[in-house]
């Protein structure tokens, strides 16, 4: 049994997915069409979208930060735990965590 649960590896992947979801949400905001508004409203819509694209990108960056942070925890554990390295071939929890050290997306 590793010192950190395999869920840490699973969560790292889920935070990566949050990063993808939020990055795409940022694109939706940035690309939202403003041509349908009158000129007066469009003048206000454009800076709104610019600001919100940055806000959403901020969330995406934070999500990626948590994914990376969890991977650092896993890597630190792996490098300091010789028993875990020896268990790689037969402990499925260790396999899950080992696999999570590589960022997939």
């Amino acid at each position, binding site marked *: 049994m590793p010192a950190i649960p395999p*869920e840490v590896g699973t969560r790292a992947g889920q935070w990566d997915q949050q990063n993808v*979801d939020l990055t795409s*949400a940022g694109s939706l905001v940035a690309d939202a*069409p403003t041509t*349908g*508004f*009158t000129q007066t409203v469009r003048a206000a819509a454009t800076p709104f979208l610019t*600001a919100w694209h940055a806000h959403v990108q901020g969330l995406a960056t934070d999500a990626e930060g948590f994914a990376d942070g969890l991977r650092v*925890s896993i890597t630190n554990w792996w490098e300091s735990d010789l028993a875990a390295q020896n268990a790689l071939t037969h402990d499925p929890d260790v396999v899950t965590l080992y696999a999570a050290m590589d960022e997939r997306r």
Partner: protein
Amino acid sequence: MTVTLPAPPATVPTLTCDPASVELFVTDLLSASAQIDDLGTFVPGTAQIPAWTGDDSVTYHQEIKPLGTRADAMSLALRHVSRRASQHATALQGFVTTHDDLVLRRATLVSELNSLRLQAPMIPPEQLDDFGADCTQLGNRIAAFDTDVTALVTDLGAEEDEMVAAFTRLQTLDQVEKRYSGVPDPADAALADKPPTSAGPAAVREWWDSLTPAEQYAILGASPGSIGNLDGIPASVRDRANTVALERDLAMLELLEERDQLTGSEKEHLTNARATEKALADVDDHVDPITGEPVTSQLYIYDPTAFNGDGRVAVVAGDLDAADNLAVITPGFSNDASKIPGITDNALNLYEATRVLGPDQTTAVVAWMGYDAPDGWDSPGVAFEQMAENGAERLADTIDGINAIRDDDPRIVPVGHSYGSTTTGTAATDHDMDVDDFVLLGSPGPGDSAEHASDLGVGSDHVWVGSNSKDIVADLGDMGWVNKGNVELGLGRDPAEDDFGANRFRAEATDRGMGDNFGDHSKYFEHNSESLYNVAQIVNGHYDEVSSADHKYDPLFGGPTDPEKDRDPGTTDTEGHN
């Protein structure tokens, strides 16, 4: 006596806007809001790792909490702005209508004023009183017109100010957190009262109607997936919820595609999403042949990963919430969600034909890829009824849902093609469906439970069969004494046979093949064909206009006989070109 001509009417200011484009803006913001809402749900839920202990765990749980709180506030704020923009789009539509009306009124007033100007020098003294009265009356109408122009300018300005304020009041994160941090999401309480699916579509409709507009919009932003495919929710609402889901999918999957990170199942997902987007665009690009207005599109079902990736999608040409006549096309063998553009083309042809042949009636046609049809690895299922039986239950649920959203009693006509006719026939025999007529096209059999047209539950005179004499698939049903169902094979009787007792209508193609072939199996929805003409007349309820065909029969001596093989096919006009 002096008569003064009225002053010219005020100029109508130019109004440059596009409410439909504003609705696209709304959908994009709502889709982004839904994505951010998911983060707000993720942080206090799935993101937690209770089994993890130690310093790293403490730090992790402390640091993610504020992110969740910020996401919740941002989701509410973005949803608020998108709702305001949606109201703005509605207001703009009203202004466009008023503006166009004013332009026409002004042209009339100017014309009348010019006419008075031309008459003025030639008015004899004895007619001056009458002429003066005409001038006064026109002057009053011009004054009223000028007031309306001023009102348009004032109202538009006020509406623009409101929209601008919505943008500027929620532009910074400080503004967002001051207003929405810690504010409960109205969607949560509303969703807590949502009846279970087992309660049925009528209970769902009652629940939805009990919500305030703000609660309804909140659910669209927070949880579009909870209502997008829920029977009993109005079609226009399902369309918006599913469009939000579609936009999210496309944005996310295309990002992964750019990064070359798509998995195999995500590639299938993206294929289905793009096919759905194309089908909707195809409807949007069509204009109604009678009104010249764009055809309404509705995304009624969107579940692109259902059935192990085959997907489940239904696209409507027309307004399912309001149309007089509704048709539901169920396709057959070799179809899945990636084929929805082709199925939608058939729905559009039927839509146009019903409008041309019944200009006073409105129509909505559903391209219903709502079941797992035999295709790909499960193609062998086409020889058996199991997939039709599963699909029949889903089709019956869809019909129940449509009935639940309508307070009136629209005509409903399920139209099954190929294996889809087996699904449709099985739905009729195995489920209690409240519909008016059934149409079976190119049918290999309506299922074993339908020995006779009267088994379909609407009366044999309301069961209609289109069977092209050269369609090889339509010859697969049991004829005469043959009954493959006794040995668990086949898909039931040939519904075009005389003993089945349905109405057979003419469905020959002018370019039909020489012998039995598969090509003629795909011609039932072609414009200007006998088949499309007759199906449209049935959907419209114009039974007397349907051209009947002689049934197939199986004489005691010799093989099955189809009299239609010897008849020269005719043409019709289903596009309104003549």
